[in-house]
């Protein structure tokens, strides 16, 4: 009996030793290259403001150096100012594309044939910088300063098209299944949050407001000041961040994404 126990112990010890004293360590160098860049409006050079998360701008890298199988999608998301940075990239040759609230840079038709491909094939080595010049659907701007009254914030915004309907049609129609309703602005929102990273992924639904527009009813409001007020009552003394957003009835990569303006801080006065 005792012998059996010793035997088992010996075997366990051997197992333990063989696992911990492996002959070789994982000596592959960690990824240390950096990919950084921006997504900007091709016409004006302004950054595309976005949400931080899957509903914002997605950066998709595919390592082309790897040929044994189909390359994996390595996804990460833009920051809210349209900039992105990944500091843990293996050195290599990559395809990089971005998808967001703008005309898709990779456009395929109903049969999967490529119509246009403005993605970038680049070697990532050291710090590699790239810039995507895209055509956003909408431009959202603040008009004047928001007003606080009894815990409610009233802001005025302006929504304009950043790409003309003709150009939208020229680029989207060949992709198939097109209809003119895609150009309609469906909703305008005022997001409220306690943190500066306010957007679709981070908003307080007690205060945030949504205005829906049926069909093309937003058309006459394009370029006009729109007044939008928060819901509920934000307690006095609270600091919040607000941001307006609008979107059209068109989904890129399965998601109808918002174009945003920049987040601003609002202090609700103490009583």
């Amino acid at each position, binding site marked *: 009996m005792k012998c059996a126990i010793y035997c088992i112990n010996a075997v366990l010890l051997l197992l333990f030793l063989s696992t911990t004293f492996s002959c070789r360590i994982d000596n592959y160098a960690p990824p240390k290259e950096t990919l950084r860049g921006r997504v900007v409006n091709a016409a004006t050079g302004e950054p595309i403001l976005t949400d931080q998360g899957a*509903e914002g701008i997605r950066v998709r890298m595919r390592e082309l150096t790897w040929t044994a*199988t*189909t390359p*994996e*999608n390595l996804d990460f998301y833009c920051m809210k100012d349209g900039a992105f940075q990944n500091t843990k990239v293996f050195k290599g040759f990559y395809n990089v594309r971005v998808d967001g609230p703008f005309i898709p840079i990779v456009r*395929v038709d*109903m049969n*999967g044939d490529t119509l246009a491909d403005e993605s970038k094939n680049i070697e990532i080595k050291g710090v590699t910088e790239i810039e995507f010049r895209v055509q956003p659907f909408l431009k959202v701007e603040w008009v004047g300063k928001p007003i606080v009254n009894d815990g409610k914030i009233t802001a005025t915004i302006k929504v304009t098209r950043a790409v003309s309907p003709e150009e939208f049609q020229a680029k989207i129609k060949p992709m*198939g*299944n097109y209809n003119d309703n895609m150009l309609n602005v469906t909703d305008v929102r005022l997001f409220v949050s306690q943190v500066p990273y306010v957007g679709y992924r981070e908003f307080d*639904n*007690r*205060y945030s407001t*949504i205005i829906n527009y049926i069909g093309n009813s937003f058309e006459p409001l394009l370029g006009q000041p729109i007044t939008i007020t928060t*819901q*509920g*009552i934000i307690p006095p003394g609270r600091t919040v961040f607000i941001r307006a957003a609008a979107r059209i009835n068109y*989904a890129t*990569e*399965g*998601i*109808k994404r918002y174009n945003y303006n920049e987040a601003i801080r609002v202090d609700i006065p103490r009583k």
Partner: protein
Amino acid sequence: MKLRYLVLLLGLTIGTFTSCRKYLDIPPKNIIQDKDIFSGEKGMQLYLSLMYSKMPFEDFKYSPARGFFDDWLVTPGTNEGSSIGRDAGGAMTSEGWARNGPYWTMAFSLLRDANYLLKNLPKYKSNFTDAEFRDYIGEAYFARAMVFYALAKRYGGVPLVTNVLEYPKYPAAKLEVPRSSEEETWNQVLADFDSAIAYLPEVSPVRGYSNKYVALSFKSEAMLFAACVAKYNKITGLGQKTKVRVIGFNPNTAMAASKKYFEEAYKAARSVIKSGRYALYMKEWAPNDKEAQYKNMVDMFFDISSPENIYLKEYQYPYTAHGYDAYNIPRQLMGGNGYSAGNCPTLDFVELFDGIPKNPDGTIKVFDDRGKYLLFDHVTDIFANAEPRLRAYVIFPGDNFKGQVIEIRRGIYTGSVVNGIDPLRTVNGVTDYSISGPANYNQVDAYTGNGAFMGKKVLFLSQSGTQHETVTLADGTVMNAGGKSGPFTSDRTGAITGFTVRKFLDPNLPQSLVLEGHSTQPFPLMRYAEVLLNAAEAAAELILAGESTFEGDDLQAVANQAITDIRRRAGADPLTGLATLDTIRKERKKELAFENKILWDIRRWRTQHSDKLNGSTQQDGAYYRGLYPFYSTKANKYFFDAGIEESRKLFRFTEQDYYFLIPPGEVAKSPVIDQQPGR
């Protein structure tokens, strides 16, 4: 001496391995061979048991959080909006996230069993009668149809493996099967159900086996799913690796496909109806007798001989029992494992039914014209005329269950009633019933002594089932603020919406047996009411597609008849006007709640993300409501407060979630398996 042994050993070795006769070349005796299992009825019973144990049935062992074959915390209804519970409530955006993982990884085992049977059983045909052989082949097709259906409704297009993949005989490339298009997948589901229907007998030869009508019924359900995806789905795309349309239909052919599937759904459901073998359960039903109609709808789920049962999942103690009673029992009847009220119906669900005082917008009427609470002599008065079906599904405050009055009360109001009682959800004088308002009654002025109640607390609540604020009544009795079955301020084991579920709860199960793994009531996987609703929905869709008759039937008449019959049995208001698609969908949401059907219906209708729910849509995050009873000591009456439920279970769902993610590991390790486009 030693040499002699060595020579002997050498001789033996050479002798054994170089023998011309294959003494040792026999199959191992301890492994059951095809010839044993395919030897006759007994062997096949084993094989079919194995298959049925892996069947993707959404029964008392299924929950979105834990997937199939897991009987813990089973609260059907909590992801479809019919109810919420302490441990569940929220939109289904994935499956098996709490445990067991996605169905994708377990589906292919049963698929192989079915394919193996189809391939190998014909070699042993002589061991069976013709009827037996046809039955087993039919069972294999039925299993395969159920697997492909379960996969298709989760993932869209899937690898259509329809033969036995031999490993390691086949080279790796032959073992890799890419996802087919979603349309091809639904066509395979259709073909397999049709094969099953052709082979299966009219009556199950063994209790629990499927039969022709089971297959027809599930076919109608599956084809409705396919047709709705073709018609309502908006997201489609091609796989990155294969360029195959793995989700959605080609927009150019989608409408034609949708119509084809609606026709198939209609034909299948009509075949079941025309067979005359099934009927709505009416054993205890009597006209104009709400009590009998209510009792009829409670008992129908416990009567094994009900003519409404097309397919039941039965359970047996101790081997396969489940825990539905233990998890969902009202708080005051809590069993030994300490669970209760896991399935609290939402007010939104209750408001779908007839016989309730309602406002013009369909919400429950709790205020009078001055905006003051309506007062009721008894807590049961507000639901006194409720539709019998609703009573059979939901326990109201003050209802009887297992010989006890189920005490559901949120609190006691001791304030003045001279000028009526103002809405409770008021903080610092501001009344707000939206999401911005108070989430819990311990924040309101009447409780905190602010606003109109400055310095004078008039609302009393219970913290939990054991910590109560109490009020001494005029007659000297001391009353707990909260009811024995809740709802409570922080402990969510009570009726958190003001209701608890009655459907499926065994009214005769002794208290000592309200335990996990002790319940044995059957689960209705398929019942006649659903077939009627399937036929009605397919008919209404075909009417919208421009047909008025199909196969000699007047489609509108078929739809009207189905809804009329179901409403009559339920004791609901009779159908007025035509049974439109909206009427039929609403009827379905009422009749089939808590049966893991609505969960998928709102997905196939593609309405889950976009339907308005208390001011928001689920794609922006939405909440359900509850109905909270309060007792007024001054009036000696009850009043009800309706509003967003206190636990604030967030339902959030985006369009992408109509298709579950393919497990990323499966995508990464395969050169051909595509992730959902856009993800």
